[in-house]
């Protein structure tokens, strides 16, 4: 359910930018979201359509760039890619893995008129 408030935050940022950068129509918004951000993409898309209705972003396309989960394996002393927080290192099997990225929840850019 918090996807709704996330969408409201997105709309708020868009409206800030509309004033600051003088545009009146948003055609496309690109987000960067990591698998660990705790966001359900389907719910986000649904909420986005609802929340943007009647505003300058109504009808705009929402594109999501899915970011990888990156981690640092301490025994291997190198960066590795995992899928979940509790995954072991894909190379050595150790659980001494520190997550370094994958919780992104950002607006990267947007296309406007």
């Amino acid at each position, binding site marked *: 359910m*918090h996807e709704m408030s996330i969408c409201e*935050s997105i709309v708020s*940022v868009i409206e*800030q930018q509309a004033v600051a*950068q003088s545009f009146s129509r948003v055609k496309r918004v690109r987000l960067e979201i990591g698998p660990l951000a705790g966001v359900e993409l389907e719910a986000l898309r649904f909420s986005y359509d609802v929340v943007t209705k009647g505003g300058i972003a109504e009808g705009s396309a929402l594109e999501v760039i899915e970011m990888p989960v990156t981690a640092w394996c301490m025994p291997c002393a190198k960066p590795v890619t995992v899928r979940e927080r509790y995954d072991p290192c894909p190379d050595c099997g150790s659980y001494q893995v520190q997550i370094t990225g994958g919780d992104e*929840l950002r607006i990267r850019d947007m*296309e406007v008129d």
Partner: protein
Amino acid sequence: MCTVCGCGAGEVKIEGGRSHRHDHAHDHEHDHHHHDHSHGPAHDHHDYGKGPAHAHAPGLSQARMIEIETDILAKNNEYAAANRAELARRGVLALNLVSSPGSGKTTLLVRTIEMMREEVPVAVIEGDQRTANDAERIRATGAPAIQVNTGKGCHLDGHMVGHALEGLKIRDGVLFIENVGNLVCPAGFDLGEAHKVVILSVTEGEDKPLKYPDMFHASDLMLLTKTDLLPHLDFDVERCMENARRINPKIRILRVSARTGEGMEDWLAWIRISREMNRIGRK
């Protein structure tokens, strides 16, 4: 309408002793937002002048692509930072208690308050979708409590807690924020607390840390509650603790029972030490 909590929709209610609605929102030092409830999401009530939303590059109009690079939760994080500053100013340790519904948060809190009241001032912010029942249970102990009803919302956010904080006079004490019973959404919303404390009762599954990893990852302490019921259950405590540590190797785990008092002294000791740690370097 408040884009963080949706409070403009009239769904969020903050109540309690010296509680207030949003007409009181401006009498504190960090006057960081401006409420105007007359219309929908098309307005802004947060001065982003110094905030990250202004981190765009002016004049970058090529192909009408606008680079934003803004954290979507930046606004909540600003409210949380303001709360953290206010809490530091007052010398208050804030703990954000998170769990599923029915884990025994309120019972544990009541017992904790009864044990702590003599040594330190305690206050509570209670988050629930509806009713003021929990705040009433806390007030029965004599501690001040403010109920926040989130209405349609599934979590407390920095903005709601900021308002609730205005209605509490606590200084040099401990503020417990009992979040909405939900192991998903509250993980992403910083309230300005010093620590998240996740509460898991032994009547739940030992795989909950794996099912809801974000919350266990975000928490510094896990309280395994209702341990007095263990003789009647097949709950595997070791397995549960192992699962929690797989998600978060740094998490500390205490077994407690508000009913028998098991583990309560350790929990109180953790709070005392956290208060000390929170104070060191602040003055």
